[in-house]
């Protein structure tokens, strides 16, 4: 009996042309071709997508939850990046 596990893959689906691929879930498969077929069968049975990306989960590097606040902090006090910061008359269509 094999003790090997099938690796994990993340699945991204483009639901319609013009939209970004969106993460929809994951699955186990031995290679990309299997992952692709499996993704089709699992996630697009009702025509949920027109394009699929599969990516090995181990290839995804994610930011860590614990340092979230420090990591994103520099953006918090820059309110001037938003249009609402500026006082200009509505009717001027700026």
């Amino acid at each position, binding site marked *: 009996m094999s003790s090997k596990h099938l690796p994990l893959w993340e699945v991204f689906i483009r639901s319609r042309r013009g939209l970004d691929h969106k993460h929809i879930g994951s699955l186990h498969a031995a290679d990309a071709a299997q992952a692709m077929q499996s993704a089709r069968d699992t996630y697009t049975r009702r025509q949920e997508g027109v394009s699929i990306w599969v990516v090995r989960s181990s290839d995804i590097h994610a930011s860590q939850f614990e340092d979230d606040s420090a990591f994103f902090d520099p953006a918090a006090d820059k309110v001037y990046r*938003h249009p609402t*910061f*500026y006082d200009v008359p509505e009717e001027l269509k700026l």
Partner: protein
Amino acid sequence: MADTSPPDALSRFERTIAAEEKIEPRDWMPDKYRLNLVRQISQHAHSEVVGQLPEGNWIARAPSLRRKAILLAKVQDEAGHGLYLYSAAETLGVSREEMLDDLLSGKAKYASIFNYPTLSWADVGAIGWLVDGAAIVNQISLCRTSYGPYARAMVRICKEESFHQRQGFEIMQTLAAGSAEQKAMAQDALNRWWWPSLMMFGPHDAESAHTQQSMQWKIKRQSNDELRQKFVDQTAVQAAHIGLVIPDPLLKWNESRGHYDFGPIDWDEFNRVLAGHGPCNRARLAARRKAHEDGEWVRDAMLAHADKQRARATGAAA
């Protein structure tokens, strides 16, 4: 690419466009569509990047900390816009290095307007108000372009642009309401930036080399003249509101057209600047080249650092 296409590829491509659907990177597309997009998107990217230079000139001399922080944030956004657009172009099979080489060698074009100098602080206001204003008119239209990655980049960029024009207008509004000298400074900036801003939309439709094909493929959704008119209409009202005068004696509301009429554009000047003879063409490219060369050690250091990390990781595993 064209030779390996399935027999019905072209009609499928045309049907997709006709149905207002987007073309995506892995789809078959005519070579000319691809080339046309690469040209337009890379030029657009170069413009975002070179466009940082005239404003960058004033970051260290902004009149207050508030203005400085805002200008810094805006210029940072423009660098990001360059990045989004280069990435969109890369989905078409052209490399970042090729595009950068074309910019630095002077082969590629970028928006001519960035070859004008920023002589006073009011120029920063005029750029935000007029140059970003014109860019936004164009970019809103391009959110509906037929190539998916370009359209998505435009949506993101438009969202970020919304403060650029407002901060510029706010600078002009403040100066125009200030002392006589400040108001004169704002008027002078408007005088110098007005016509180049109108030229940003490109030649008249009848003379535009790429417009017809681009419209047919829905790369462009509105013509140069339509977009220019939209910009004139909205800016005329804004200028009047802050008491500045647009330097065009022929600018006049036309009731029957429902638009502002405006005077003829000096296309000789446009062509001169486009051909490399504007006031700052050489300085802009020289600054870009220097920035690229000065950044070399950073790129080298990034690679060396990654190598070291990798060696350490394998060392630890062994």
